[in-house]
């Protein structure tokens, strides 16, 4: 006491990265006298080895961005519009909470479902979900609104959780021999990039790993791969179907044992498209090829599961009493269906030569070394060192539900789902997956259900009780960009106006830049009476905000979440430096709101929701549900509850992560315990139910919705659908515009404001430009570096051309997210905004899962 001399501070603090959504790499940060002077990777953790990307290395320039929002502000100009000055006035936090809580109280009394919320801060957005769950009293129809839009890989989540218990999947790589990547920036901005970059580089230089990248534009991974094969946008589905055709019909290479015992491919399917079931037990039946009789799928006396043939099955329940029903194994139905998808057929769709498809199928089929095993930690596993993975190329088109299904089923043919060297899975973000249930639970038909599911959970109600019309798609992950349509014109879509968005709260989301057609998004935002944004900057969308609250940078924030990919355990993010300005961390804002609204404690309070999220459904609670606590006490309780170590321990050590041992990493449904739905009749049932609902309520007559379109793509097996962009629009739109991300790109909700990364991008020949093939440019008389307009039916954007051989001849390649118009001296006007080219209507959304079409038909011409 009494010592007034300032102590010199010089320390390294452990935390982890939230600079983008992909990595959350563990870090150590050098702090000198309260200033972050260096950010490095944690060198002690296996697979990471201290390597971090350019974004993490540059994060202090985002932390110290002078354009950060410095205090809460409220709007004074009631007129809202792009570029219209909101007349911001600084207010205190007390005033901000007062205004906000008043508003929320009114909504909660009237109809809590008129609050819509969204966050693209995947590492802490769970907190927002806890708040909204408590706000609505646990109603599953909690509203999301136009969030991360074109960025989300929605189909991979819905199809992945349904088909092989995977929220995201990625090439396991450690033991892989052959990887096909379709439309994903492997090692750049997709799936644990710093780990996969190391593993792929090592595998390729040591020999033994072959990588093929199929993408309209050359990615970094494509540049390093054994082969880059350009493909016409949104035709990956045709490629997968033809690969399956070659494997099944020409080569006969597929993993029969895997199909018979780890999937429902042998289940006998009746004429109605559903499994034949035993009269007595109601269990799905299979045909025992040895005993020549039908048996329940789990009968221990089964000698051989038939995959092919047509059988008369007297044991099966049937409505028709005259004649015993006929059944075919699901695989037989699949085999007949894909007979039409020859490589020649696919070549026309994809522009990939038929011979190339045949060669790739043969190569990957042989590399799968079907029948081989591997011993890891003393236990033997089926070894299938091949993976077909994808991201935007398979997820961001209107035929993506079927594309993702085909990709995952192709892996099933190869037996590579969750195999050593095969397709690995990322289970979940946040802390919800901490229990690592093993094996996954299964249903009464013996089908695995994964750790969580994205099956439809919105009960059918018409008129719709949310602007996102969730009941049409069931779940919905992507932040409901389609809520834009409903908010603008509820009558057109049959939306009950008592459910229009009354208040929108966004956190680290910039809808105007991240969804399609900013003009439409602006219209929708203007129709929201009260919009609150928790943000680091005044971004484009804030032209429509009523209240802006200054968020902290993640270097100033406390948060605990699971590290998944190859790891389990808590990865702690802690305030490395004190929050600057009058900023407050998002979780603390939600804690304060919940306390003021009196929804923090109690059996349906925010803390009760938190316990449920952690799989704790009663005493002893992980977090006391009857006592108010601080956010720090909450994190401490989670650390102790899950791992018996307190927050102080985690602050010192940073994390307790460990590699997931092989017996829980591979074949998570439990080998020979549950099966993958090769033939996904639950999906068909959902489609049938949707059609029934739509027809019963005459939705087609009462609204502008196309019932037939909405019921497409629910088939239980992969079949061909073109994407919207394949239907010829105005012939003047002769090219496709696609976008992708580089290793220095953030996701679409984070502006490109980091001065170092912008400086690096300016030195790259491609990143800030629009890529066009030399040949295409020559035909159009366009030159390198020329200023052009790219125009679609949605709008036009200006940009500079870069002539290259590394893009498909029918394609213009964009990097994103760029082309900002927010007031930031470094970000404004850099690159071109691809989203402005994407039209927004019900036909640009896929059925089954509302994947939005992230490619557009465009024309390009010289700018005067």
């Amino acid at each position: 006491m009494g010592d007034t001399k300032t102590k010199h501070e010089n320390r390294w603090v452990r935390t982890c990265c939230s600079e983008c959504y992909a990595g959350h790499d563990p870090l150590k940060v050098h702090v000198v006298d309260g200033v972050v002077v260096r950010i490095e990777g944690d060198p002690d953790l296996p697979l990471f080895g201290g390597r971090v990307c350019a974004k993490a290395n540059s994060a202090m320039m985002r932390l110290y961005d002078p354009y950060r929002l410095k205090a809460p502000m409220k709007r004074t100009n009631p007129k809202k519009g792009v570029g219209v000055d909101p007349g911001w006035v600084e207010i205190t936090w007390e005033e901000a909470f007062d205004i906000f809580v008043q508003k929320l109280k009114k909504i909660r009394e009237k109809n809590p479902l008129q609050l819509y919320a969204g966050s693209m801060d995947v590492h802490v957005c769970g907190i927002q979900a806890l708040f909204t769950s408590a706000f609505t009293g646990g109603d599953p129809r909690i509203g999301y609104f136009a969030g991360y839009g074109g960025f989300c890989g929605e189909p991979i989540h819905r199809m992945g959780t349904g088909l092989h218990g995977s929220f995201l999947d990625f090439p396991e790589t450690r033991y892989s021999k052959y990887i096909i990547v379709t439309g994903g920036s492997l090692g750049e901005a997709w799936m644990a990039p710093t780990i996969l970059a190391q593993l792929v580089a090592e595998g390729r230089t040591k020999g033994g790993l072959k990588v093929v990248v199929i993408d309209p534009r050359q990615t970094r991974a494509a540049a390093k791969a054994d082969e880059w094969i350009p493909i016409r946008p949104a035709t990956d589905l045709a490629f997968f179907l033809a690969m399956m055709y070659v494997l099944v019909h020409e080569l006969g290479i597929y993993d029969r044992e895997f199909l018979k015992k780890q999937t429902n491919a042998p289940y006998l399917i009746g004429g109605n498209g559903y499994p034949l079931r035993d009269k007595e037990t109601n269990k799905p039946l299979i045909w025992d090829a040895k005993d020549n009789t039908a048996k329940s799928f789990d009968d221990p006396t089964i000698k051989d599961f038939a995959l092919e043939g047509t059988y008369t099955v007297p044991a099966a329940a049937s409505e028709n009493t005259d004649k015993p029903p006929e059944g075919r194994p699901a695989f037989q139905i699949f085999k007949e269906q894909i007979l039409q998808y020859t490589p020649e057929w696919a070549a026309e769709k994809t522009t990939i030569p038929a011979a190339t498809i045949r060669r790739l199928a043969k190569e990957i089929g042989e590399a799968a070394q079907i029948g081989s095993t591997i011993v890891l930690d003393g236990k033997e596993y089926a070894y299938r060192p091949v993976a077909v993975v994808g991201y935007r190329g398979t997820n961001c088109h209107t035929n993506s539900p079927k594309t993702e299904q085909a990709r995952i089923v192709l892996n099933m043919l190869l037996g590579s789902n969750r195999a050593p060297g095969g397709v690995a899975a990322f289970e979940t973000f946040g802390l919800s997956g901490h229990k690592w249930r093993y094996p996954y639970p299964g249903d009464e038909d013996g089908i695995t259900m994964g750790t969580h599911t994205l099956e439809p959970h919105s009960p059918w109600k018409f008129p719709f009780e949310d602007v996102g019309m969730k009941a049409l798609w069931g779940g919905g992950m992507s932040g409901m960009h389609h809520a834009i349509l409903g908010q603008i014109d509820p009558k057109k879509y049959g939306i009950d106006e008592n459910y229009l968005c009354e208040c929108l709260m966004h956190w680290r989301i910039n809808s105007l830049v991240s969804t399609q057609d900013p003009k439409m998004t602006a219209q929708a935002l203007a129709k929201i009476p009260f919009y609150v944004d928790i943000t680091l900057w005044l971004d484009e969308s804030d032209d429509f905000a009523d209240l802006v609250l200054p968020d902290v940078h993640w270097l100033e924030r406390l948060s605990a979440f699971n590290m998944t990919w190859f790891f389990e355990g808590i990865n702690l993010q802690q305030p490395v430096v004190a929050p600057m300005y009058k900023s407050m961390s998002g979780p603390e804002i939600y804690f304060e709101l919940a306390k003021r609204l009196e929804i923090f404690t109690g059996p349906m309070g925010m803390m009760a929701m938190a316990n449920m999220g952690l799989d704790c459904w009663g005493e002893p609670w992980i977090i006391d549900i009857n006592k108010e606590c601080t956010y720090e006490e909450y994190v401490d309780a989670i650390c102790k509850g899950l791992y018996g170590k307190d927050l102080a321990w985690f602050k010192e050590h940073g994390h307790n992560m460990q590699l997931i041992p092989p017996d829980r990493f591979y074949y998570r449904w439990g080998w020979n315990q549950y099966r993958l739905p090769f033939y996904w009749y639950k999906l068909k049932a959902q489609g049938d139910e949707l059609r029934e609902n739509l027809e019963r309520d005459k939705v087609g007559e009462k609204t502008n919705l196309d019932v037939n379109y909405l019921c497409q793509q629910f088939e239980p097996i992969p079949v061909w659908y073109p994407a919207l962009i394949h239907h010829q629009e105005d012939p003047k739109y002769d090219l496709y515009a696609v976008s992708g991300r580089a290793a220095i790109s953030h996701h679409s909700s984070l502006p490109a404001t980091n001065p170092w990364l912008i400086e690096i991008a300016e030195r790259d020949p491609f990143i800030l430009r629009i890529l066009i093939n030399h040949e295409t440019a020559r035909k159009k008389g366009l030159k390198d570096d020329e200023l052009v307009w790219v125009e679609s039916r949605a709008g036009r954007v200006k940009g500079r051309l870069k002539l290259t051989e590394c893009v498909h001849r029918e394609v213009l390649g964009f990097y994103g997210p760029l082309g900002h118009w927010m007031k930031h001296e470094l970000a404004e006007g850099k690159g071109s905004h691809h989203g402005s080219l994407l039209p927004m209507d019900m036909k640009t959304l896929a059925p089954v899962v509302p994947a939005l079409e992230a490619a557009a038909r465009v024309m390009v011409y010289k700018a005067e």
Partner: protein
Amino acid sequence: MRYGLVIDLRKCAGCYSCMAACKAENFTPPGVFFTRVLVNENGKYPNARWQFIPVQCNHCENPACAAVCPTGATSQKENGIVTIDPNKCMGCRYCIVACPYRVRFYVNKRGTYYRTPTPYEAFGFRARDYQEGTVIKCDFCSHRLEQGLEPACVATCTSRARYFGDLDDPNSEISRLITANRAYQLLAEKGTNPSIYYIH
């Protein structure tokens, strides 16, 4: 002891983490990257590929820069690292002309990224003595080597394409990599004998 670097071009994916790490570690002024990644395009569609080639000071055994330095500011340490003494450099920039690799930078103005320096940059002004009117460049992160650490670009490389070590030790990892892969130097014909080798 002669420090050297091997860059495996088969592995480098042009992610630019080395450029950012180098900037962070060395507080370089706007416009200056001691290490850069050049991007080339080879081949015809569809068999075309991008190639990424990181470049930085080669710490040549026979540095052309040192030979032309009139004040002796550029010199070579016993460990092979070529350094510039800012107190002796008078900014004549002969070295920039003489260097065949274009990896030296003249500091016209120290500069900041925004109108006023960020707290990080303010710290950098004190931590690194880059004087206006002098030439600066990569020194293999000598301050890190003193602490037993690898250069920042090597430690962060996301595809492990960079290897650092002792060229004089025939058993070092880099010596073995050079021999096994017939690694080559840039512009070897200039006779400078660079300490950076590339595997293609």
